[in-house]
């Protein structure tokens, strides 16, 4: 199992104050204070307790740090990701990866940042204020109307790797990923399907174990 590529944080309050200075952190996130002052955003959430992913994750609390996009912009992109690829079973933490990866592209690329910020502004404008607050049908109509635009292409394209190439997605969709270190499937169910007739030995010889 690879590490979930989201910064894991201990539940707030557990680590207490700084022994030397006595300062109590406001949020137990691995962030430098300076970065808050730059106007960056932090997306946070929790994995549902008792869910499949909560059992796999090092912590149920997740947080994603944004360097260029604001929290509100990150949330709008997460919401757009859910419109594009609506998976009830995928937690917000996965859609936050989309915001994180796009933020990564925007950082150090002014043109990309402008495309994203303008795009989010257009989403909000079309929603009459706040895209994330629009109802599902309205969100879909707004996104659909943007198809073909560079902003749409950027977000949709990024979804393919951000949403579907991570351990939470693997676990959600039932894909185990790397098989080599487990010895492949030769003894682990590569032919365990029983709801159809067996092909017979001529078509499919017995496995040589």
């Amino acid at each position, binding site marked *: 199992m690879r590490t979930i590529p989201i910064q894991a944080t201990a539940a707030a309050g557990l680590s207490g104050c700084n022994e030397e200075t006595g300062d109590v952190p406001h949020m137990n996130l691995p962030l430098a204070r300076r970065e808050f002052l730059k106007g960056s955003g932090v997306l946070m959430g929790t994995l549902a307790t008792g869910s499949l992913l909560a059992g796999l994750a090092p912590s149920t609390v997740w947080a994603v740090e944004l360097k260029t996009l604001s929290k509100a912009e990150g949330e709008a992109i997460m919401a757009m990701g859910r419109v594009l690829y609506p998976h009830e079973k995928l937690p917000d933490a996965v859609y936050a990866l989309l915001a994180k990866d796009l933020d990564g592209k925007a950082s150090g690329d002014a043109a990309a940042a402008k495309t994203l910020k303008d795009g989010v502004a257009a989403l909000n404008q079309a929603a009459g204020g706040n895209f994330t607050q629009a109802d599902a049908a309205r969100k879909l109509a707004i996104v659909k109307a943007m198809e073909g635009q560079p902003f749409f292409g950027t977000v949709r394209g990024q979804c393919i790797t951000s949403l579907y190439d991570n351990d939470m997605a693997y676990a959600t969709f039932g894909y*185990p990923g790397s098989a080599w270190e487990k010895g*492949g499937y030769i003894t682990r169910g590569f032919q365990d399907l029983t709801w159809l007739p067996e092909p017979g030995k001529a078509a499919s010889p017995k496995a040589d174990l």
Partner: protein
Amino acid sequence: MAKFATNDDSVVVIIGSGAGGGTLANELAQKGVKVVCLEAGAQQSNASFINDEWKSFSQLAWLDTRTTSGSWRVAKDFAGLPAWICKTVGGTTTHWAGASLRFQEHEFRTKTVYGTIQGTNLLDWPVTLKELAPYYARAENKMGVTRTNGIPGLPGNNNFKVMHAGAKKLGYKEVHTGNMAINSQPRDGRGRCLQLGFCFQGCKSGAKWSTLYTEIPRAEATGNFELRSECHVTRIEHNDKGLVTGVVYFDKDRKEQRQKARIVCVAGNAIETPRLLLMSASNLFKDGLANSSGQVGRNYMRHMTGSVYAAFKDPVHMYRGTTMAGIVRDEAAHNPKRGFAGGYELETLALGVPFMAAFLNPGGWGEDFAWWMDRYTHLAGMWLVGEDMPRETNRITLNTNVKDQWGNYVPNVHFDDHDNDIAMREHAFRQGERVYEAAGAIRTFRTPPYPSTHNLGTCRMSARRQDGVCNKWGQTHDIPNLFISDGSQFTTGGAENPTLTIVTLAIRQADYIARQMKARTI
């Protein structure tokens, strides 16, 4: 491994180390011929291969800039990635699925059998199945192809069970786990298939044949072979008699080098091979090397392809085991009653979640796309691969607007589907759907072509010099010591996965080159 001087003009230089180049190199080295193999990619190994689709793609795929044009859907979906082939020692034999089928007899004489088809450049091969049969046998033995040489077939996985049940119900007769260059039992110093499910990512168990760990180390052991990896050839040079004299390349340290040669064999796959001939244009050969016919880069074929995925009520787990786990061959024959010339194969194929997202429906989104991904464990998949028509206008050219990292023009890949390709794809999609419907599919989905893995025909063989680039031995018509040693030689594409035929031609070409060298005719 031997080490040859760059001014040693007695060596045979082979460009590329895949199915064509790697095989040719070993066959020549075994006969005592000195070979320098220049491979653009880096050296990997079974240990360094990665069971992760995107990471492996970065490790193995040829990602140098390429451009596309034409009406084929790949130009829209993957504008910068016309082909999914490799830049690594072993070439695309690291990535291939292992399907090893002989061409059918009629596929060597399609002009005669199919007749005139408007908008095609059909031509009979200058070689017949009968002539190739003994070399096919050697290739199958070398590669350890299942269901040949007494090697049992592979055990079928769940994905195959679905295909088999549906195909049989539909009345198809020839349905089995294929002729695969994947060990079903230990053979030739390599173990048997562990059903990893990562055939496309480089086989970590080594059960699948690749020149990387068969031909190349054997060539090295002869003392007649030197492999230089991360060496990108940019030009083939010639003398005023019109014979090639060596090649210019950038080495690992990006330093320009010149290797002299007695013979040069080009095996860079059907995009880079013609590109290199075109880039080597000179005062003597103004249109590029070996291009008096004007056919270099033309007749680019990429096989009619498409995929059908199907969702079932019960689980399949198609990702478990061999990627290409089985085949239906009943549609492979030429049967014009179906409304098109040539035939096609139906072969199982599975993708992991990351590549399903990328390839299921490129550009697709929304509820319907999500519906398919949500059912990932309940999907079965197959690939459709058939003969496409050679067309002069489907071609590789130098794109003079775009340069690569070496300052050379990138190749542009232009392709328009012929009506015959479209009719065949429609038929294949329908039959694929019917197979899965017969097995109880809830829904089926038509996935458009992936970037081309079977790139063929761009320096084709011809009996007459005005019809093609090389003769029946792969020797160019214009330059006797310049050879084409990969799938670029194919006069037409056949319905079958091309690797076995590429290896077959390489074995045969090695015999020819060795004979000619001995006779001092080249």
